[in-house]
């Protein structure tokens, strides 16, 4: 019904190949984008800084991880460390007086050049062993960052991010920061949408399906595995610097620990492996469901006079987060994006279900 295909005639190949061939999809995307652009005028400051900005940043990071996991089929348990490298590099550069635009790129390049070491492990081992190797690297990078005074400013130190501006706009207020995060997220999403249509994306898909087969077809597994880690780590580094500048504003090593990596992994899985829409849904659910649930239990406890122990209430977010991951893997392994696409497929031909191919 809504996603009407009737009356849409593609008379040129170009029309078939566009990102969103259906008019309704384009309309939906544009209206969501318009809503996001209008958000600072519609929403309270609190929601903007507390919900939308982290959502955009975590989504961008999950998109970068999804390129590696969904696109190239490599497991990465150390994405938090990659982001930490980008964040620390760019913050140190900004403090040294380098403009943010260059500092971000430099953070990305630094992350990419270290992230490619993670990729070197992928050349040697795969599957569960790769997961272990990246996990170990996460701990090692954490250790190096927190134990090197030149990077972290001494153990248990936090580094303040000085006031910065992007393309001449000062990123002090929430509105400017929000637009900056939205811009970065938009660019990364656009890249991810298009990467599947390039030879690079197709080579990654070949490597994902079977690396030997890809090699036989003439796709250099060596090159594309490293390239996948390079690109994904570059995105991670840039997002890490955005995270530091826009949201944290003072960075310390413990903000980039294994918990961040697992959180991003959970967003990718819950959202949908290999989909661009997925990380948007996944980030929203993983970030906000525990908070909402916690508030709900608080509400229930006060309105019905139930005495929920304080320890239990403190741990409800963790329980909810674990339960979400388990539940999605068991009941919808392809995540929220799959649920959306099922709905879309249903609506495409509703009410003529028998017409579905």
């Amino acid at each position, binding site marked *: 019904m809504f996603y009407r295909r009737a009356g849409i005639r593609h008379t040129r190949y170009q029309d078939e190949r566009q990102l969103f061939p259906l008019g309704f999809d384009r309309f939906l995307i544009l209206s969501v984008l318009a809503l996001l652009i209008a958000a600072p005028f519609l929403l309270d400051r609190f929601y903007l800084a507390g919900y939308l900005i982290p959502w955009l940043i975590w989504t961008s990071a999950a998109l970068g991880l999804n390129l590696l996991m969904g696109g190239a089929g490599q497991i990465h348990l150390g994405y938090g460390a990659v982001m930490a490298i980008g964040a620390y590099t760019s913050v140190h550069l900004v403090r040294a007086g380098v403009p943010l635009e260059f500092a971000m790129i430099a953070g990305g390049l630094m992350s990419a050049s270290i992230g490619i070491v993670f990729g070197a*492990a992928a050349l*040697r081992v795969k599957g*569960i062993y790769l997961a272990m190797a990246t*996990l*170990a690297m996460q*701990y090692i990078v954490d250790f190096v960052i927190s134990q090197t005074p030149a990077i972290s400013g001494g*153990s248990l130190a936090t580094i303040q991010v000085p006031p910065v501006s992007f393309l001449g706009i000062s990123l002090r207020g929430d509105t400017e920061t929000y637009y900056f995060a939205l811009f970065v997220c938009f660019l990364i999403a656009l890249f991810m949408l298009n990467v599947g249509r390039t030879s690079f994306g197709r080579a990654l898909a070949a490597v994902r399906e079977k690396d030997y087969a890809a090699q036989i077809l003439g796709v250099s597994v060596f090159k594309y595995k490293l390239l996948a880690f390079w690109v994904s780590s570059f995105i991670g580094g840039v997002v890490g610097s955005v995270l530091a500048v826009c949201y944290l504003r003072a960075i310390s090593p413990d903000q980039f620990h294994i918990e961040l990596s697992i959180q991003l992994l959970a967003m990718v899985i819950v959202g949908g492996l290999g989909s661009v829409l997925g990380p948007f849904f996944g980030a929203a659910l993983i970030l906000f469901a525990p908070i909402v649930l916690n508030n709900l239990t608080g509400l229930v406890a006060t309105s019905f006079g139930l005495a929920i122990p304080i*320890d239990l209430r403190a741990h409800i977010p963790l329980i909810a987060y674990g339960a979400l*991951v388990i539940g999605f*893997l068991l009941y919808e392994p392809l995540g929220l994006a799959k649920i959306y696409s099922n709905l879309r497929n249903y609506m495409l031909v509703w009410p003529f279900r028998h017409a579905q191919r």
Partner: protein
Amino acid sequence: MDYILIAELAVSGLFVGLMYALVSLGIVLIYKTSGLVNLAQGAMAMTGGYVTWAIAAGLGAPMWIAIMAALVVMFGAGMMVERLALRRMIGQPVIMTIMLTLGIEIMLRGLMPGVFGAAVKRLDIGIPQAPLFLGELLINRATLIGGVISLGLIVLSLAFFNSRYGVVMRAVADDQTASWSVGIRVERAIAVAWGLGAVMATSAGILWGATQGVDWSLSLLLVKALAIAILGGLDSIPGVLLAGLIVGVAESLATGIIDPLVGGGTRDIVASVIILVTLLLKPHGLFGREHIERV
């Protein structure tokens, strides 16, 4: 360098390593039979500690009954985890099973402190606190007894693999389809492996709980257990024994010798370095079987 100190560190490292090895024994057992790496093993050890504490303190049972009851409960819990969660994952990509066990880990890490309280629980299994002097070496009695019990359990599990059911499990580990065709109930063997894995995690949780108290930090045993499992080879039980000793001694020596040089924190990094070096040099570990992949 002070040789007494080094000897002391090495000896205590040996026993601590044996206690780590007990956690990774479960990982190896589960990997051997079902080909999955259980990242919830540390959280299972924590759960075992909490359950023992709850039975002992909550129901007022004597400690040995509490331990027995906890082992039985956790055997059932391990089988339930396999039956309800992991069995549905057969045929899914490896990232899904990794993520599922991580999800279980996160949930247990929230559930146990949430239900039983987050404060550190003392678990007194009757080991005197006074240190033991062996010549000039000072040895922590809890780690000594814990290490000896762990060694006993590891030897016991080696013996188990020569028993009738152990042979069945070895067959399943070798080739699931072939075992199926000669009438072995593969699903049950895998479920039993998960149950036994949970039992080993529980005994490790009790021993560690006796030395450092029961709280969520018991789940951090996971990284060390993984290091041992990978260094020894994911499917080798003798490997666990040797790798446990190596990791324990390496960690203890690093804490004593490198820590003063770099300002602390090496204890947690030794395991990661061992994982990385093993994977890059000899991915199948010291005793692991090399898998030859066919296209």
